């Protein structure tokens, strides 16, 4: 009996060590503390953090989609991101679809509001391949705080706020 438990402990310790080593060797290692926002993502899109978002940005092949309203987008967005507010996504999708085809997509909103990005990811997931969809949890506040590339002004590609501008 004693030997049985010694074997059990040996396996548990070996597994813990190997598990930690494998995770440490990953380029997208799982941090040992995850924010609650990570678990709030209900769409099948993969939640990502700043490091991964920045890597995808640097690779240059990823489309960043800002899910906030046009006013918030115009005040500052991730450089090159397009604006697809959740309430207008169906109207913008025909223009968006040809542009995002076959590319990775990162959807973001504000740091404290994963909801809009997650809801948009859920909507996009019905049309796009699931493994190419990501939700950036840190959002624009984290990106800005890290002084990563940003720009201001309306969306030059999809013109998400053109109608708004006309109204004003």
């Amino acid at each position, binding site marked *: 009996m004693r030997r049985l438990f010694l*074997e059990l402990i040996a*396996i*548990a310790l*070996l597994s813990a060590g190997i598990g930690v080593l*494998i995770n440490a060797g990953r380029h997208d290692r*799982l941090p040992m503390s995850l924010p609650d926002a990570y678990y709030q993502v209900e769409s099948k899109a993969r*939640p990502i953090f700043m490091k991964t978002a920045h890597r995808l940005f640097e690779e240059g092949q990823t489309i960043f989609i800002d899910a906030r309203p046009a006013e918030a987008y115009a005040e500052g967005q991730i450089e090159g991101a397009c604006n697809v507010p959740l309430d207008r996504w169906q109207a913008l999708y025909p223009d968006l679809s040809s542009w995002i085809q076959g590319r990775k997509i990162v959807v973001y909103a504000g740091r404290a509001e994963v909801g809009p990005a997650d809801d948009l990811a859920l909507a996009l997931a019905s049309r796009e391949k699931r493994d190419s969809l990501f939700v950036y949890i840190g959002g624009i506040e984290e990106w800005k705080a890290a002084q990563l590339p940003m720009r201001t002004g309306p969306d030059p590609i999809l013109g998400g706020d053109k109608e708004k501008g006309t109204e004003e």
Partner: protein
Amino acid sequence: MRAGWRTALRWTLRLALAGIYLFAAVPKILDPWSFARAIHNFRILPAAWIPELAVTLPALEAIAAVAVLTGLLYRGGALCLTLLSLAFAGGIGAAMARGLDIDCGCFGSLAHSSASLPHLALNIGSAAAGIILLAWNRRPPQRRRLPR
């Protein structure tokens, strides 16, 4: 003949138990992010424990399965898989009792399946297989030699 039948059954149970756990462990090792969310879905463990579990539990499954398959630390591996199966069955049972419609995460992101009766049955079956393997591997009590 009886011993041969028993050996064949033992090997079948070893292969089945180790095969299931190896098949379950690999996708979880490859994608601990999804597995962390699957653990959280059960709403049983504190959030602070989840990343550690998501990293170590798949390794534990894989190593215990290899132990059962190779015979190295065989009894420890069989006990480990038995306890894991009982824990998973308890988790799935608790989720079903609370009416949670969740992805059980049994096979990581490889196969999305809800915490349901077939998965509960699979885990109970795995636990039973582990117990049989442990019982059959007990060393027989040594016979005392009668004085001549």
